[in-house]
């Protein structure tokens, strides 16, 4: 069979199996769906939160609330960029929107570690507690990243590696925000390293397993 005949046969076959399709919602709507899941986890965790202490901690020094704003915006914009890059024809440059909030998150967290005056009413995080934080960050990030990847698989990510990394960054940012609800400690270098390790692990997991799933989804 000649190539043109093969193409014609393929076109006829594809047209023969055509069914009406439901258009994919916009990246913002899809981001909102994922953020609802983050919010639900937040509502569950808020049962264990001392809101008065949390509010005092965040208001006491700018680096505390700035790092939280950075993490929250990283989660939102990285998730949006992941959904955006999962649609053919949308610019991969969208990924850059996640960079400024991620920088804010990293810089504010680093500034917290370098700060000489401790926050009144808090203690530095005990060394062994950092492991608990790492566990929490991974345990929360992985289901969030899985949910995000599952939603992304409905699209057709042409750059699965980039999309998977953004999904990992979004999940790590969200997990870091959620951790604040149950983390009554002042910032320490250990804390920063644990966060960094957790973020990199989640991104690496997404880059490996998530990319493979997204790659399969587009074929």
């Amino acid at each position, binding site marked *: 069979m000649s*190539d043109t005949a093969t*193409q014609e046969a393929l*076109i006829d076959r594809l047209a023969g199996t055509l069914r*009406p*399709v439901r258009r994919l919602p916009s990246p913002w709507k899809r981001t909102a769906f994922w953020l609802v899941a983050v919010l639900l986890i937040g509502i569950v965790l808020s049962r264990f939160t001392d809101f008065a202490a949390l509010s005092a901690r965040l208001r006491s020094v700018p680096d505390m609330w700035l790092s939280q704003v950075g993490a929250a915006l990283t989660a939102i914009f990285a998730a949006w960029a992941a959904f955006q890059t999962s649609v053919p*024809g949308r610019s991969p440059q969208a990924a850059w929107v996640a960079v400024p909030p991620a920088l804010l998150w990293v810089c504010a967290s680093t500034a917290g570690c370098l700060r000489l005056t401790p926050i009144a009413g808090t203690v530095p995080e005990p060394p062994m507690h950092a492991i608990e934080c790492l566990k929490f960050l991974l345990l929360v990030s992985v289901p969030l990243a899985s949910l995000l990847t599952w939603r992304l698989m409905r*699209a*057709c990510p042409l750059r699965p590696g980039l999309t998977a990394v953004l999904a990992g960054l979004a999940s790590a940012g969200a997990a870091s925000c959620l951790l604040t609800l149950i983390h009554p400690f002042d910032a320490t270098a250990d804390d920063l390293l644990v966060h960094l390790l957790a973020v990199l692990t989640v991104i690496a997991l997404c880059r490996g397993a998530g990319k493979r799933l997204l790659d399969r989804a587009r074929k």
Partner: protein
Amino acid sequence: MAGPSEDKAIPIDDRALAELMRSAQAGDKAAYQAVLRASVPIVAASARRTGVPRDAVDDVVQDVLLTIHRALPTYDPARPFLPWLRAIAVRRAIDALRSQGRRGAREADDEIAYLNHPDDRPDVFEEASRLGDAGRLRAAIATLPPRQREAIEIIGLREQSLEEASAATGSSKVALKVNFFRALKSLRGRLGNDPDV
């Protein structure tokens, strides 16, 4: 297939294609066929521009048609259709180039095995003379590409050895054999005695 500027030569109305895609998303099979047919030359041109070799362009086109089918829900008819299509075409072309590169790194040519591999299919020249089709054979040879014609004339008709043919033409023995077998395949197809063609 036409040249790389084909998508410019064919009048392609992006808005019309977007409308066809909208209908296709609603289940209109005729609109879907129309949009897929219109996509073929655009995809082929994108693949060639990306550097896909001529003989692999059709594979990329088929891959892209399958991807369009899979990605149909992701198209937003409020946006132009061609950037959506070209993004898929370019990525598929890059995938094809990468997979070709991987295959090239994995596979090694065994020149001696290739040269000594026997072809157990019927001899096209004997078959043609048995059927009294020498005229058709000559006409079919005349339509072959120059390198294949040269190989078939020297090795097949003048019955020179590969060494002699290589010395006479300045081509390597492998290149001559490849062109000779490609020519035989074409001739079998044209003379209608190859079940594979």
